[in-house]
C-alpha cells in the first residue's frame, strides 16, 4: 500500500497523488474516453436543450404575450403585464397557499403512516406479504380510474355518508365535494391514500438497511420499541425522509390530476392548485400568455423549493 503524497498545483491547491504507477496514463485514457463519449451524449444534449430548455425559454417568451394559443392568430406583446396581473390575482395566491398546506399535511400524514406501517411490517406480522400488496396497490392505480369512484363515495348519497349514518354520526354527513371547506380535505385524503404505499415501501427498504446489531444494542441498553423507533430507526431513515420530502414538494407543485378529476378545482376555487389554474386559464379562457406567466412562477417556486431543501439537507448531513 503506497502512501499518498502531495504535489504543488498551478492553482496553489495540493494535488493528492496515490503514488500508483500509470496514474498519468489512466488520466489520458479518461480524457480520451471523454472525447469519444461526446457524440454519444450529443443526441441527449440536443434533445434536452432543444426540447426542455428551449420550451422553458419559449414559455418565458409566451408569458410576455396576449395570445389565444392558435398558431395562426397574431399575439400582442404586453411586456410584463401578465406578471403584474398575477401579483394581484387572488386565485393565484390561493393556489399557492393551497399547495403549501396541501404539501405540509399530505407529507406529514403520509410519512407518519408509511413509517409506522413499515415498522409494523418489520415485526414479522402474519400475512405480511398480503398487507404489503394492499398498502401498495393504490400507488399503481391511475387517478383517472379512481376519480369517478371517489366522486361517488363522497357524494351526498355516497358510501362515506352512508357509513357515517350507520355508525351514529349523522351530524357529520354533508356534501363533501360541494363545500370549499371539505373538498380540499377529500383531495388530501385521496392523495394520502394513493401515495402512502410508496412512502411505506421506501421506509421499509430503508429499515431493512439498518444493521440488526444496532437495534440489538439498543434493546440491551433497555430501549423499548417506541424509544428504539424514535431514537434509532427514525434518525437512520433521515435520508429516505429527505428524499420523500423532495418528492412530495415536487408532487405538490405539480398537483393536477386528483383535484381536476374529482373537484375541477372547485367549488369556489377551494381546491385550486397552480396546475389546475394554468389548465383553466390556458384551455378554457384561452389566455396562453397568462398561463405561461403562472407556469414561469411555478418553475421559480420549484427551483427555489429544491434549492432550499438541498441546502437544508446538506446542513442536516453536516451536523
Amino acid at each position, binding site marked *: 500500500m503506497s502512501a499518498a503524497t502531495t504535489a504543488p498545483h498551478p492553482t496553489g491547491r495540493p494535488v493528492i497523488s496515490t503514488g500508483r504507477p500509470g496514474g498519468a496514463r489512466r488520466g489520458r485514457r479518461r480524457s480520451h474516453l471523454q472525447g469519444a463519449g461526446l457524440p454519444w451524449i450529443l443526441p441527449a444534449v440536443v434533445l434536452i436543450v432543444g426540447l426542455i430548455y428551449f420550451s422553458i425559454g419559449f414559455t418565458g417568451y409566451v408569458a410576455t404575450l396576449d395570445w389565444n394559443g*392558435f398558431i*395562426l392568430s397574431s399575439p400582442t406583446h404586453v411586456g410584463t403585464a401578465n406578471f403584474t396581473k398575477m401579483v394581484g390575482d387572488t386565485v393565484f395566491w390561493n393556489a399557492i397557499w393551497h399547495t403549501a398546506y396541501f404539501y405540509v399535511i399530505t407529507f406529514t400524514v403520509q410519512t407518519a403512516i408509511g413509517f409506522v406501517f413499515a415498522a409494523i411490517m418489520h415485526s414479522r406480522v402474519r400475512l405480511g406479504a398480503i398487507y404489503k400488496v394492499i398498502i401498495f396497490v393504490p400507488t399503481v392505480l391511475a387517478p383517472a380510474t379512481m376519480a369517478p369512484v371517489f366522486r361517488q363515495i*363522497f357524494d*351526498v348519497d355516497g358510501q362515506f355518508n352512508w357509513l357515517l349514518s350507520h355508525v351514529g354520526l349523522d351530524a357529520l354527513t354533508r*356534501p363533501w365535494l360541494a363545500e370549499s371547506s371539505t373538498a380540499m380535505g377529500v383531495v388530501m385524503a385521496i392523495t394520502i391514500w394513493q401515495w402512502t404505499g410508496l412512502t411505506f415501501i421506501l421506509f421499509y427498504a430503508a429499515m431493512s438497511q439498518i444493521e440488526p446489531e444496532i437495534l440489538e444494542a439498543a434493546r440491551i441498553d433497555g430501549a423499548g420499541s417506541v424509544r428504539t423507533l424514535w431514537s434509532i430507526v427514525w434518525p437512520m431513515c433521515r435520508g429516505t425522509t429527505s428524499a420523500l420530502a423532495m418528492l412530495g414538494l415536487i408532487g405538490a407543485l405539480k398537483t393536477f390530476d386528483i383535484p381536476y378529476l374529482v373537484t375541477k378545482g372547485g*367549488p369556489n376555487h377551494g381546491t385550486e392548485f397552480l396546475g389546475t389554474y394554468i389548465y383553466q386559464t390556458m384551455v378554457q379562457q384561452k389566455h396562453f400568455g397568462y398561463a405561461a406567466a403562472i407556469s414561469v412562477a411555478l418553475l421559480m417556486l420549484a427551483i427555489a423549493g429544491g434549492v432550499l431543501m438541498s441546502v437544508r439537507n446538506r446542513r442536516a448531513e453536516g451536523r
Partner: protein
Amino acid sequence: MRTSMRTLRGRRLGAVAAVTGLALLALTACSGGSGATTGTPGSATSGDITWWGWTPDATNASKLIAAFNKEYPDIKVEFVSKPIDSYDSVLSPAITSSQGPDVFNVAPGSANGGVQTFEAGAIDLTSAVEGALGSDWKSKLAPAGVDGLSVGDKLVGLSAGAVYSGGLWINQDIFDKYNLKAPTTMAEWKSVCATLTADGQGCFVQGAGQWAFDMDTFEAIADNVEPGLYVKASKGEVPWTDPKFVTAMDLWKSLFTDGIMQEGAVGLQQYPDANNAFMSGKYAMVMMGTWYTQYAVKDSMVAAMEAAGVGSPTPITITPIPFPDLAGTGNTGSMFGDADYGLAVSAKSTKQAAATTFALWLTTSTAGQQAVANTLNDIPALKGVTPQWDQIDLVNSDKQKAALQTYTEGAGAATEPRFATVSADLNTAFRDALIGVASGDKTSMQALEGLEAVQKAQK
C-alpha cells in the same frame, strides 16, 4: 493544444446554440400570426374529405353523410369525432396542416371551437352561401346561425342547426305516477319537490359544478324578471349590478335554500352526474335544452339510459316544460340559443370545393336540413324545415308529440343568444358568481360586482 480544444469546444457550443436558435426562430415564426396559406379548390363534386367535430354523435353523423351521398355519391366524407374537452387542443395544430380536416366544426362565443379563435384557419363562406340561397340568404337562415358564426364580415361557419335552452325536462312517468302537474310557479315547484321528496323520489337535479348550465338557469331566471335584460348586460348595455339582477340572483340562491336543487349540487357536474341521475330515474326534473329532444325517441332514450348505467332499460317518457315563473312576472317560455355547430372549410384544405359542397348541402339545402331536423338534436338553421314527426319513433307519442312540436317551434322562433355574447372571461366570472352565491360564499351583490368588473375590463 489548449487553444485548439477551446476552439473545438466553442464550435460545438456554437452548433448547439445554432440548432437551438433555429428551433426558436422556427417556433417563433409559427406563433407570429403569419396567416393560413390558402389551399386549393379541387373538384366540387368528387373527392375524399374529412370532417372533424365534437358533435353530432357517430350514429347521427352516419345518417347525415348517407343522406348527402344520395345526392353526391362521389364525395366521400369521413367524420372524425373529437372529445369536446380537447377539441381546441387538437384542432389548433390540425388546421395549420394540409393533412388536417377539410371541414371542421366551429361554435359561437366562448364555447369550444370558438369562431373568434379559429377564424384565421377558415375560408369566408359568404359568396358560397350567396350562390346557394341568393342575395337575401340571411333572411332564409336563423339569425343565431349567422351572427354567432361570423367574425366581422367574414362568415366563418355555416350553421347546421341550433340548440336552445331556457326550459326544463320532466320525467312524465314519475309525474304521472304521483299524479303531479308540471310546476309553473315557485310555490308549485316547491310543492312538487316536497311531494316527491316525501316519497323518497328525487325532484330536480342539476350539476351546478358545471357552470354553463348554471348560466342557463340564471339566464332563464333573469328573462323571467325582465326579458332580454341578460343579453343587454352581456353586451355591456346594462350593468350587472342592476337591482333586477339582484332579484334574479336571490331567486337563483333560493333554488338551493328552498329545497328545489338537490343537496350537494355544486359538487356535481351536469355531464355525466346530473344527466345520469335523471336518465336512471333518480330525479323527476332536469335543466336541459333542445338537444334533449333526441331522447324522446325510443332508440336514443334506450341508448342514453344504458350509457347512464341502467341495465335492460325501459325507455322513459320525457317532455319539455317552460321554466317556472319564479319572479311572478308572467314572463315565461323564454328560450335562448346559439348555433350548435357551424361547418367551417379549412383554409389549408386541398379539396375546398368538395368541402364547401358538403357544408352547403348540410346547412342550406332542404334535404340536408331535413336530415338534421329528423335527428332531433338540432333545430334546423334553414327556416321552414321541421322534423317529420310521423317518421320518428317517439317513446310515448300521445304524451310527447304535441309538447315537442310546440317546444321546437318555440325554439326555432327564439332570437336571444345563449353564449354568443358571453366572452370567455365573463363565462369564467359567471362560475365564480353563481357557484359563490349557491354555496353561500358570496352575497348576490358581491357576485354581481364581480361580473360587472369583468364586463368593464373588457371595454
